[in-house]
């Protein structure tokens, strides 16, 4: 199945491999909205092939952080290197090739209301791979829909889907173009425990199959446990703690502890 698209195997060769190379390197990132300082000083690295889980209270700026990475928001200060290129303040023309390598799962799903599920999935594929054949497109769409367990939703409109189904379709829309970096904004929020478990293992599958590097924002500790190679916690606009998930679970800090209860 996978061979029909053969997207990544080739382009991957041009990129640094081996777990110690950072694909994203952020340093001194600052972002405010008016008077409100959301990110004060954030520095982090995402290494090739790893899953980095980001924890943090609601409103701590997790979504803002990953929006800065894809250039949806402009940082006030600091550098954000993606594959060695600073994305802060560069033009759309320069951003486009980088964005094609990044998959972004929106917290709200952000499905196109006016399009069917099929058209939603076709949209990024047709835009990013202009020369793709119809047959390949069709196969790929079926495949990702099966991966998220929603093959029957192909011709439905987003308004006909439940909240959790919409979330899964938007996950499908994100992975359909085989990105090298995945930014998941709360992939399991609002899903039942069984589906959350399936999504977590899907995230792992994507990581293994395509050697994707991912940032996973989540409040779902179960999801964090099963997907994380490394965890960071965001608080007060800075990184409060970084380490393995076990370090967090054994932490004595009451704030950190409260996340794991």
């Amino acid at each position, binding site marked *: 199945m996978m061979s029909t698209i053969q997207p990544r195997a080739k382009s991957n060769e041009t990129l640094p491999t081996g777990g110690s190379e950072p694909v994203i390197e952020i340093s001194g990132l600052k972002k405010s909205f008016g008077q409100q300082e959301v990110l004060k000083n954030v520095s982090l690295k995402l290494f090739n092939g790893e899953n980095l889980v980001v924890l943090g209270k609601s409103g701590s700026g997790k979504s803002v952080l990953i929006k800065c990475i894809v250039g*949806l928001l402009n940082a006030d200060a600091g550098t954000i290197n993606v594959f060695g290129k600073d994305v802060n303040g560069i033009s759309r023309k320069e951003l*486009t090739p980088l*964005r094609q390598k990044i998959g*972004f799962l*929106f917290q709200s*799903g*952000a499905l196109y209301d*006016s399009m069917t599920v099929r058209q939603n999935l076709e949209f990024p594929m047709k835009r990013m791979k202009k020369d793709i054949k119809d047959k390949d497109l069709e196969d790929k769409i079926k495949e990702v829909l099966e991966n998220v367990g929603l093959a029957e939703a192909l011709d439905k409109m987003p308004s006909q889907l439940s909240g959790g189904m919409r979330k899964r379709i938007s996950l499908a829309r994100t992975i359909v173009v085989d990105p090298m970096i995945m930014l998941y904004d709360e992939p399991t929020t609002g899903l039942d425990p069984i589906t959350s478990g399936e999504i977590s293992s899907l995230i792992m599958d994507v990581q293994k199959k395509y050697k994707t590097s991912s940032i996973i924002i989540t409040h779902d500790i179960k999801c964090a446990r099963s997907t994380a190679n490394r965890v960071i916690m965001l608080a007060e606009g800075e990184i409060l703690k970084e380490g393995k998930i076990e370090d967090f679970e054994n932490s004595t800090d009451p704030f950190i502890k409260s996340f794991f209860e």
Partner: protein
Amino acid sequence: MTDANKLGPRTNIKGFTAHHSFRLGNHAIAKTEEAGNFLTELADAFLFTVRVIRETFSGGFEFKEFLFQCFQVGYKSLPLISVTGIIMGLVLTIQSRPVLVDFGAVTKLPGMVAVSLIREMGPVITALICAGKIGSGMGAELGSMKVTEQIDAMEVSSTNPIKFLVVTRVLAATLMIPLLILFADGLGVMGSWAGANIKGDVSFVLFFSQAFSHVHFMDLLPAVVKSFFFGGIIGLVGCYKGYNAGRGTESVGIAANSAVVLASLLVIVVDMIAVQITDMLK
């Protein structure tokens, strides 16, 4: 002073003290902020327009989406515009007929109606209706796409949302609204013929030939030119308000509403300017 004291605790909660000077100060600050907001909005709108124009001519035109928008703007407005057009002519005829009878000029009726429809009533009324239907539709659609991050999703899918969403809609409105206006003019003359037949008896062919013998090229040209401006304004305002909607769901309603208000106002203002210019050229 006494009023403020009577209100007592409530005024205090709002942060106003009973001191006159302080209240005046607050008032003045509020006023300057308002003026500042208006100016930033104006600058924003200007920059948006410049950006849309630049993106229109910078290659990579979304032709399929443009055709779809033409269909949405043009075809889907036909029923509404048809009804308006017919009624416009009918009413104009019924209202002006008694006056013309008094003057003994009832034979001039078709010509008068045709000229006033084509020069003024057709373009302005149709444009106002379009501001209501198309302007608010674009404001609400883009506004809800903005609020639910669909525009951001397009952006990260290597699609320029200004090109894909805005340029196509603005161009579709600019091209389709003049066509709708001409269509409304035609139906208006037909409505007028129907109106003339309520009390009199004129053949369709005679009525039409009388009507159009009074319409000169210089009646039609300025009307068509201003129609393009009306179309462009309606598209631009609708998209501007939608694209710059705020972050909450309530912003969608605000975007749609303010799109209609601003587009209607601008249609009237541009019409006034157009009339002045046409008048000077004569």
